[in-house]
């Protein structure tokens, strides 16, 4: 292993590039004996480029010793080293789980949280023991991170535990995490637990309302559509995108009839200079009732809006209304064709034509 010795000696070189190459070469040797040399250099190395190269080398070296080395680094005082150790362990994937299990049993709350940070990007069925422990952890941050991971992984087997956490008198951030996780898991039965926890959406503070809206968007039906629609004129402007997203998502599941108050609010939103994406959403919601003459006329007028996203939304909505199987509007095609002749934006043109 003379080359390893040679490379390790280059760590004392004043030239940063040579030190980067030394770390890189040790990584490509892919020998467990290289790990101690890398770990020894790390705390005294001040160049971020060399540090980066040392972590890349740890990723390249196979076997337990590189994993153990990275696990040790999770306890570093230096946040950058901790974060890079998390990255190395993510790359090691399922092989790191037995080592992480040990940390989960014996480590302090910060280490336990870092274990879950690692697992956030590791898809493995072997992490069950860690998640069982994490969901009962004393530290709310550990529980929240576990719930977030499980939601992202759509771990349906944990749905009951997450619903229980939602219904318990939990930390508000944990409640929000549970809502997001149940949304990720996507079982319609979770709606009942959500509604038990929050029987009235209108009474929720903003930060919980945003998460609840995502959940009812994914799982809600006619009752939720009406309730969400009532929020639109009364809640803050910053919540409008979430409210409109929920309406767009719920509608196809229940197809409620037009409500005059909602139509008026939506039209005002399109006209009142809200952010373009919000106006686009409002136009798309209006499109659900494009079979109404008034709504259709409004959407046609939107095709001349100076705002490109409003025109795009109107074009998509009106095109939907002309699709076979939906309520046909025989006069609409020529209107869209005429508009297409005046439109210069390529994507709006595509939407008008599709």
């Amino acid at each position, binding site marked *: 292993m003379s080359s390893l010795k040679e490379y390790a000696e280059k760590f004392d070189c004043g030239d940063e590039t040579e030190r980067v190459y030394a770390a890189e070469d040790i990584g490509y040797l892919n020998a467990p004996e290289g790990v101690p040399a890398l770990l020894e250099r790390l705390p005294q190395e001040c160049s971020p480029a060399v540090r980066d190269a040392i972590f890349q080398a740890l990723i390249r070296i196979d076997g337990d010793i590189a994993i153990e080395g990275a696990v040790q680094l999770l306890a570093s005082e230096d946040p950058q080293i901790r974060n890079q150790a998390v990255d190395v362990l993510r790359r090691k994937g399922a092989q790191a789980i037995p080592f992480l299990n040990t940390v989960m049993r014996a480590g302090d709350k910060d280490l336990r949280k870092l274990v879950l940070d690692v697992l956030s990007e590791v898809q493995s069925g072997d992490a069950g023991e860690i998640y069982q422990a994490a969901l009962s952890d004393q530290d709310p941050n550990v529980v929240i991170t576990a719930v977030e991971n499980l939601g992202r992984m759509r771990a349906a087997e944990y749905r009951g535990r997450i619903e229980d956490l939602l219904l318990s008198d939990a930390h508000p951030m944990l409640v929000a995490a549970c809502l997001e996780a149940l949304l990720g898991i996507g079982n319609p039965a979770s709606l009942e637990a959500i509604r038990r926890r929050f029987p009235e959406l209108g009474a929720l503070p903003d930060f919980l309302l945003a998460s609840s809206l995502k959940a009812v968007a994914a799982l809600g039906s006619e009752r939720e559509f009406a309730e969400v629609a009532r929020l639109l004129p009364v809640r803050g402007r910053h919540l409008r995108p979430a409210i409109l997203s929920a309406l767009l998502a719920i509608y196809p599941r229940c197809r409620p009839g037009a409500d005059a108050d909602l139509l008026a609010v939506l039209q005002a939103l399109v006209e009142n200079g809200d952010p*373009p994406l919000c106006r686009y959403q409002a136009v798309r919601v209006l499109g659900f009732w494009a079979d109404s003459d008034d709504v259709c006329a409004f959407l046609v007028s939107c095709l001349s809006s100076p705002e490109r996203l409003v025109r795009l939304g109107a074009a998509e909505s009106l095109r939907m209304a002309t699709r076979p199987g939906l309520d046909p509007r025989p006069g609409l095609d020529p209107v869209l064709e005429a508009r297409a002749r005046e439109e210069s934006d390529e994507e709006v043109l595509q939407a008008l034509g599709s």
Partner: protein
Amino acid sequence: MPELSVDQFQTLSQVIYQKLGLHFDEKKIYFLKTRVAKRMAALRMDDPREYLFLLTYADPQGREMQALANLVTTNETYMFREYDQLQAFANHCLPEVLSDKQARGERTLRIWCAGCSSGEEPYTLAMILQEVFPQAQNWDCEIAATDIDENMLRKVATARYGHRSVAEVPDEYRNKYLVEEGNEYVVRRRTTALVTPFHLNLHDRMAMRAMRGFDFIFCRNVLIYFDDLSRKAVVDHFYNALNRGGYVFLGHSESIGRVTTAFKLKRFETHLVYVKE
């Protein structure tokens, strides 16, 4: 089939940014929606949620992200592409580097176009260099134009381009640096003389180590086709290949900050550039 909703679009934009470094703002909602619909049809998926889950958590090799990348990026290359970035180079970075060199009594300038394709970019840089620094002819200036594809390198060597390649060249440059020959434009000899095309595989570790002493590296819209580990390895090589005070330019919407912490971010008016301090 449900279409991509606004919040799904926002999630997708974040995922694409994290994985490819490409930024798609809200103006691109229709663009992304139509590309995702194509991918979903190819995969026989009918729910965008499923597609987002696939991209985010069930694509460890990055194959689907690569398939999407092929739809959302363009291989088209032309002279003076991403003009804003070139302005930052011409108006701020280049004068700064040249003035530091002059102060040190140096008379060399080295630029590397990594993944130069058919050569539009290195010739653009050669034109800019001659325009903003006429003294270049008295310096030892070199623009190394490298690519893995020998066919592309042959095109660089011929320095002949069709109308599409030169459409964005400002008139004052076109008259000075290009000659019209039939349906083509040929780069003038004094400009081609600055450019040295040669073969280089960005994955070849030892060949990359030979690339040293550059003041600028341009590698625009190339790394998006690499996986995370290779992208990081290449950017680390760029760091080693640059002189202190040298700049690296990736594609307009690509970010280096999420790949390495070694470079420093620097602002010139509205432009953000990465420098090796």
